[in-house]
């Protein structure tokens, strides 16, 4: 069975001081640090493309895993902010920039904050269907391309970061049961309008605080898993406030649902793999619930189980 073998992230060296940004916009600095939970927001330097951050993540993954570039058989990339206008697809550009062989399969898919959970199942299904044994799932969605720095609703939230997940037939974590949700009628709550991100905070909060705990509870009940038997809740890091709200509604202790966006902000589809990267080798973390929610509106929850 195809599962997760390794995860590595790449975050741009340049970043915005979010506390200073908050004060300049008339907020208390503590609103950025304590409520949103982001003190710095990494952003791509001018001229650096989505494919560059993706290729950097792939190169870091190959270095850490010891896998040779020529052994990669498939590359899948999650983004809604691709190079140029998305044609050609960014994963093809990454194939060349990361020195991957021309024999690989590569494609992009378009999802926001639910993208990593989807991507695990997309790539697992693709590999099991095709018989491929070594695949890489990349998340790279630099919102700095579409943020209006004068927009108080969005500019304090988002940071740029890419991740690369190695998926093989000899994994550390199996990718288990999953459940999905979509509500296109609410889609305008997070939208790219004319090249600028717009977000209706209250709608997004209501959506997440209502649907995500319900979906998590439904999945655990369906799979007959006691919520206390989940070692880690890797919740999409929309903000400190939303992570804490969801954990509270689930009655999950805060230490099991970490808030880890202080140095990155909300990194869209990269936020869950950033948490997994940090915790997947921790002894005692054997069952992980990952839940992503946002753009769409779309929400998805899956369970990962350690294999050894």
């Amino acid at each position, binding site marked *: 069975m195809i599962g997760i073998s390794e995860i590595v992230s790449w975050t741009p060296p340049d970043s915005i001081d979010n506390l200073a940004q908050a004060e300049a916009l008339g907020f208390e600095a503590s609103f950025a640090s304590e*409520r949103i939970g982001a003190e710095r927001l990494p952003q791509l330097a001018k001229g650096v493309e989505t494919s560059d951050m993706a290729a950097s993540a792939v190169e870091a993954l190959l270095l850490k895993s010891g896998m040779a570039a020529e052994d990669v058989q498939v590359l899948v990339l999650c983004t809604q902010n691709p190079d140029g206008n998305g044609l050609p697809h960014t994963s093809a550009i990454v194939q060349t920039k990361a020195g991957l062989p021309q024999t690989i399969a590569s494609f992009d898919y378009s999802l926001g904050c639910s993208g990593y959970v989807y991507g695990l199942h997309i790539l697992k299904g693709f590999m099991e269907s095709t018989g491929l044994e070594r695949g890489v799932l990349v998340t790279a969605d630099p919102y700095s391309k579409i943020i209006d720095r004068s927009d108080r609703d969005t500019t304090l939230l988002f940071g740029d970061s890419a991740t690369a997940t190695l998926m093989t037939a000899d994994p550390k974590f199996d990718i288990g049961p999953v459940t999905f949700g979509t509500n296109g009628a609410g889609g305008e709550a997070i939208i790219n309008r004319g090249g600028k991100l717009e977000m*209706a905070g*209250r709608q997004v909060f209501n959506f997440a605080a209502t649907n995500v705990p319900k979906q998590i509870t439904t999945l655990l009940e369906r799979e007959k898993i006691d919520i206390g038997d989940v070692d880690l809740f890797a919740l999409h890091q929309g903000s400190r406030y939303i992570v804490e709200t969801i954990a509270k509604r689930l009655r999950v202790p805060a230490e099991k649902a970490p808030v880890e966006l202080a140095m990155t902000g909300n990194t869209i589809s990269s936020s869950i793999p950033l948490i997994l990267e940090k915790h997947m080798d921790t002894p005692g973390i054997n069952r992980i619930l990952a839940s992503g929610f946002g753009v769409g509106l779309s929400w998805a929850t899956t369970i990962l189980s350690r294999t050894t």
Partner: protein
Amino acid sequence: MSLSKHELVEIIEEAGTQISFDQLDDDTPFDKAGADSLDLMNILLGVQQKVDTEIPDEEVENLDTVNKILAYVNKG
């Protein structure tokens, strides 16, 4: 739909806001008792779920005290 003061206080407590209850009376704006915009969203979501009715965005600004929320929800 109806909402009692006791139920509203429970919603506020359950939301885990920054509100300091010793500074909150029925006509004190929530922000004067320590709440911010996120807390208000959280309180109003709790109210919506309790009474199973959506509160439109244009009403939110006016619903900044216990009494105003009760009056809005219980207006019949």
